């Protein structure tokens, strides 16, 4: 992991002190609500449906066990609403729900699709104390909200993926530093999200970001302008979800690695000048890139040339700086398993797999290969009945920290699917880890299966939501608890958002569910055929709506009808079923749409079309 310098440490503490100063001025009436709002947002403090929400930045998803323990402390001691507030909130939730509403819970953290961590109940007057606590382990909420460059995300397998061209983490860290408190880019037209990958497979949904960066090797002078094998970036700009889903365009096929900050300065400066500020729904860079196309690209290239030639390219990354940052990311030295050779470990693992069918299932689903053949990448699943996707209680966080210490060199990663990844697990430790993870209920063998769904906090917590996500996720989770059935359905991305802001990434789900509001009631649109850009779904793509929206009670039946259609229509390929998304693409949407619409409880004319 990145080793924070004295400067980094001091910087985060000063930022916490600055937040306290702003909070106190607001409390004293020296700052109005309107003036304080953008300031607290740029430290991750929202005010949500019932209480403030804190979003903690987790740079490229990496956390140390010490950081996880502080998150546990915050969940335990600060994510505590006043009992009267909780009761009032629950009463309101009960009123809007035709069936008993799920219990609102407190004392937990939530993992987001952008690898951050959120808390839902911390009173604003305790926010400065929480920032101090976070700063004690180099954590903060800098630029986790507001119209600025947000936390930079990356591949959950950065630095360990077997399909990796180059480790993206040193660049993610260099860009984190560059974007932190950038004076010129703190009040952009709209939020600005960067994702970076160094692998062949895109596990970071880069094409759905304002900027997506792919580390690649040059094909040679003729195509890429530098010698074959040199490292550089393919640069994508203008992706985004929201009410206008857009896949990012490639604006640079190859940019030498040391120029990435100079180039992004041009990308953002041109956006800051031309991005729309009259309509917040048209303010993202995707609208500008779509509207201007080549003109935007030409202006970026002209600005980039000026930065190089007239400004003297001040943000060129030196080899020394890359080396300094890269030195933080050397693989941890793992204690040799006493007396166990790699062959012995492999043999023991095979024996354990043969002896324990549940372990075998878990290894097949939740364990991935690693650059180091003696190691594995393990996903701890936070998708299980009784808890919302991506939620972890204080005790669960403490257990995760213990598992990281015992089995993963003290490191965990928050991934884009709202789970935790242990990146440094010895193959010889897999069975012991499995046993411990199972005891803690982190061992659902469902990674990438239907129940490993993405869902936002939705109308239970979020002020923006039109409908609740958590009860829908819970209903589908409860219906699909048979492991054989889940395995038979195979890998499938189900993504649920409670509103068009798309925090639950419904556009990129093979099946997407979007909460909409009609006459004060909750309705759900279902989309089919989206992709986040990973190998499973193919190039990034927005799903298409199957028809008028459904009631909450209908949604699980609609999902079941769609999945049954898949089972009826799928083909065998090499003795295996083709995946849901493959069948959908092959037979097209009509049969699936008909099945979905046929699962309505009431005839359509009695529904309000939403």
């Amino acid at each position: 992991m990145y080793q924070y310098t004295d400067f980094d440490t001091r910087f985060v503490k000063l930022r916490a002190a600055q937040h306290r100063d702003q909070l106190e001025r607001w409390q004293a009436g020296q700052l109005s609500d309107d003036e304080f709002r953008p300031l607290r947002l740029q430290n991750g403090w929202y005010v949500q449906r019932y209480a403030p929400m804190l979003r903690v930045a987790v740079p490229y998803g990496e956390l140390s066990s010490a950081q996880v323990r502080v998150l546990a402390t915050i969940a335990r001691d600060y994510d505590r609403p006043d009992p009267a507030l909780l009761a009032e909130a629950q009463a309101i939730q009960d009123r809007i729900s035709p069936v008993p509403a799920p219990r609102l819970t407190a004392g937990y953290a939530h993992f987001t699709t952008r690898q951050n961590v959120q808390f839902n109940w911390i009173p604003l007057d305790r926010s400065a104390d929480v920032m101090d606590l976070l700063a004690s382990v180099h954590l903060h909420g800098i630029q986790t909200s507001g119209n600025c460059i947000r936390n930079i995300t990356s591949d959950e397998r950065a630095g360990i993926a077997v399909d990796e061209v180059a480790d993206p983490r040193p660049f993610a860290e260099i860009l984190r530093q560059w974007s932190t408190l950038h004076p010129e880019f703190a009040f952009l037209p709209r939020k600005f999200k960067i994702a970076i990958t160094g692998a062949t497979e895109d596990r970071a949904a880069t094409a759905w970001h304002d900027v997506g960066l792919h580390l690649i090797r040059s094909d040679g002078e003729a195509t890429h302008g530098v010698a074959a094998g040199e490292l550089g970036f393919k640069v994508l700009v203008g992706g985004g979800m929201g009410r206008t889903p857009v896949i990012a365009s490639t604006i640079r096929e190859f940019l030498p690695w040391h120029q990435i900050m100079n180039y992004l300065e041009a990308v953002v400066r041109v956006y800051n000048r031309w991005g729309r500020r009259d309509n917040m729904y048209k303010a993202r860079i995707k609208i500008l890139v779509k509207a201007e196309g080549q003109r935007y690209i030409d202006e970026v290239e002209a600005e980039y040339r000026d930065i190089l030639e007239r400004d003297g390219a001040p943000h060129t990354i030196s080899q020394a700086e890359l080396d300094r940052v890269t030195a933080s990311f050397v693989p941890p030295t793992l204690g040799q398993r006493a007396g166990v050779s790699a062959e012995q470990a492999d043999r023991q693992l095979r024996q354990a797999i043969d002896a324990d069918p549940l372990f075998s299932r878990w290894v097949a689903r939740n364990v991935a290969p690693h650059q180091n053949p003696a190691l594995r990448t393990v996903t701890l699943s936070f998708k299980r009945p009784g808890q919302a996707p991506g939620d972890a209680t204080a005790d669960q966080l403490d257990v995760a920290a213990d598992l990281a210490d015992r089995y993963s060199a003290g490191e965990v990663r928050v991934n884009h699917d709202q789970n935790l990844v242990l990146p440094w697990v010895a193959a010889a430790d897999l069975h012991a880890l499995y046993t411990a993870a199972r005891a803690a209920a982190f061992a659902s063998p469902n990674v990438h299966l239907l129940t490993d769904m993405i869902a936002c906090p939705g109308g239970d917590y979020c002020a923006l939501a039109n409908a609740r996500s958590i009860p829908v996720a819970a209903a589908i989770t409860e219906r699909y608890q048979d492991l054989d059935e889940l395995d038979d359905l195979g890998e499938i991305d189900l993504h649920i958002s409670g509103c068009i802001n798309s925090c639950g990434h419904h556009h990129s789900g093979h099946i997407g569910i979007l909460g909409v509001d009609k006459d004060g009631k909750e309705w759900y649109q279902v989309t089919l055929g989206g992709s986040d850009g990973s190998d499973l779904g193919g190039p990034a793509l927005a799903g298409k709506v199957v028809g008028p929206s459904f009631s909450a009670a209908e949604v699980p039946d609609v999902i079941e009808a769609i999945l049954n259609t898949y089972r009826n229509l799928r083909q065998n390929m090499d003795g295996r079923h083709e995946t849901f998304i493959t069948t959908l693409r092959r037979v097209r949407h009509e049969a699936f749409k008909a099945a979905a619409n046929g699962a309505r409880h009431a005839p359509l004319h009695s529904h309000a079309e939403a």
Partner: protein
Amino acid sequence: MKIIANNDQNTLASGQKVIEIQNHVDPRTVDLVGVDRIDLHFPKFTDGRAYSQAFLLRRRLGFKGEIRATGDVLIDQLVQMQRSGFDSAVLRAGVDASAAQRQFERFSAFYQGDAVTPAPRFAREAA
């Protein structure tokens, strides 16, 4: 950074040539010959176009005169204004200036370069 209370702003030295550049105008298209002061306007403090304009004036065009922030100018944006090339700011009417100075004293350095200190921290450290 010269911080000017709202009611003091019309203290124009005689003979000074002052121009205002609108937010939508590219400063590179403006004739700066003989200009002593350029006013850049913040219609709302959340509208950040003037930061880029100030950067271009100071850094790209090498403008040596005064660059002044006007409009919705608040305490908590003064440091980034100064870093982007502004050297004076007229606070919005009613803003209490007492908390301003300590904002400049808080951070001793930043990661990235800016209009005043062009090189990023890692390059300055190495030099």
